[in-house]
């Protein structure tokens, strides 16, 4: 978040021509990988994300297993070439945190009790990054879980809202993320109107935050619809 002067909004349109409450274009492909039990490739603006699910499968190391339910693990990773300056391979502090909050964003909708002593592993690879990779990853992972046939209470849909040039906008692009005033990534179980991921960076009044959350609700609903359509298209004969 910085104070660099950019005219983010002109005549109700953003730098890329979007309206304030408009998502970037989204493309979803289901079941694209051979080895994984479930997978999803998703593009969202300039983000390109691959998610894969393995499981339910045996837990290694054994001492991590839970006798009453499946454990869920998640690894968010950025490919070295996904960002402007090459990223060193391997986890850094940022990706460890995102792996954790992504897992916690997804876990509530998984019916873990069906698979005691087993693991459900979610892998998210960011192949090209353009602001909003964590929410894109959660969206893809949610579809990949469905593709893997993991029993779920619904889907998780995620997007970021934020404050840019004084306005609350949906789905921040790179410049808005870098130079905007606040960034609020949110994930929801849309069918039950429940928030599963909530983070906030930057500065907002309480009122602005409410607006941001309401806008995210709208965005998540739209994404949910696209996720559902992609799954239907895949699984309808």
């Amino acid at each position, binding site marked *: *978040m910085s104070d660099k002067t950019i005219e983010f909004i002109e005549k109700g349109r953003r730098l890329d021509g979007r309206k304030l409450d408009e998502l970037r274009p989204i493309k979803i492909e289901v079941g694209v990988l051979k080895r994984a039990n479930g997978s999803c490739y998703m593009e969202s603006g300039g983000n390109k994300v691959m998610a894969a699910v393995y499981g339910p499968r045996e837990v290694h190391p054994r001492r991590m297993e839970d006798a009453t339910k499946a454990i*869920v693990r998640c690894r968010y990773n950025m490919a070295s070439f996904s960002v402007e300056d090459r990223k060193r391979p391997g986890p850094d*502090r*940022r990706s*460890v*945190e995102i*792996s*954790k*909050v992504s*897992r*916690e964003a997804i*876990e*509530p909708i998984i019916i873990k009790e069906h698979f005691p002593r087993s693991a459900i592993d979610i892998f998210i690879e960011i192949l090209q990054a353009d602001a909003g990779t964590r929410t894109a990853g959660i969206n893809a992972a949610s579809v990949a879980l469905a593709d893997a046939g993991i029993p779920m209470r619904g889907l998780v849909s995620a997007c970021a809202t934020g404050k840019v040039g004084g306005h609350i906008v949906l789905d921040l692009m790179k410049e808005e993320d870098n130079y905007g005033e606040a960034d*609020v990534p949110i994930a929801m*179980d849309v069918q*039950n*109107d*429940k*928030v*599963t*991921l*909530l*983070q*906030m*960076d*930057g*500065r*907002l*009044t*309480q009122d602005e*935050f*409410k607006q941001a*959350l*309401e806008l995210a*609700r709208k965005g998540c609903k739209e994404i949910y619809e696209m996720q559902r359509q992609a799954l239907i298209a895949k699984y309808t004969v």
Partner: protein
Amino acid sequence: MSEDIISEIKKDYICALVEKGEREDGRAFDQYRDISIENGVVNKAEGSAYVKIGGTKVLVGIKIQPGEPFPDTQDKGVIITNVELSPLASPTFEDGAPREDAIELARVVDRGIRESGALELSKLCIEEGVKVWMVFIDVQVIDYDGNLIDAASLGAISALLDAKLPNERYELGKDVPVLVSDLPVAVTAVKIGEKFILDPNLDEEQAASTKLTVISNKDGGLAGMQKSGADTLSPDEIYHIVEMACKTAKDMRKKFLE
């Protein structure tokens, strides 16, 4: 945290209490345990704060040293926040690589300081593109009895208020206090059953299904949030917590930071 998992009986007991509007230690839902802060406890550090919230104790030390700026912020100082979950503080903290808990904790504390504007990074530039102040915020967890994040955040801002730029040591003039422009305070609520309580102690933290930390500024606005834990929150629950947190933060700020 396997060893920290409390018995189902204890958990049920806490949930039943909360359901009835009560807490183990008799506190109101929005009431903190006793808080104390002691500054200037580490003379090798440029600033320090020893914070106790009930049984939870953290020691925050600020070290300030000259270093190179990042290539894309040549005229700004650097903040580096680290949390050590010393095995001294809990039977479940093990030696070794920092766990995701420690990393999340450090990053939330860091964002609170950074995003609130508490430190003006441009004031920490010594020579543009060449030398800036590196501000290390090191949180040493000494005793873990729940709600680390509020203790660590409070310790961080309090230690910064206590800190001096060590100009003399580097022949840059006289030592001056670090300029602190805002006073972010983190307040954490946890969900137990369908209720929300502030400042959970360890047992309550174990019994909770999820938590939400809200960091707010002097002007009452928000400077950061972090949901943690694998349960959901409705939008209304979130608004409720935000309101409760901002109000409580105001009291804490007045009492301990102003």
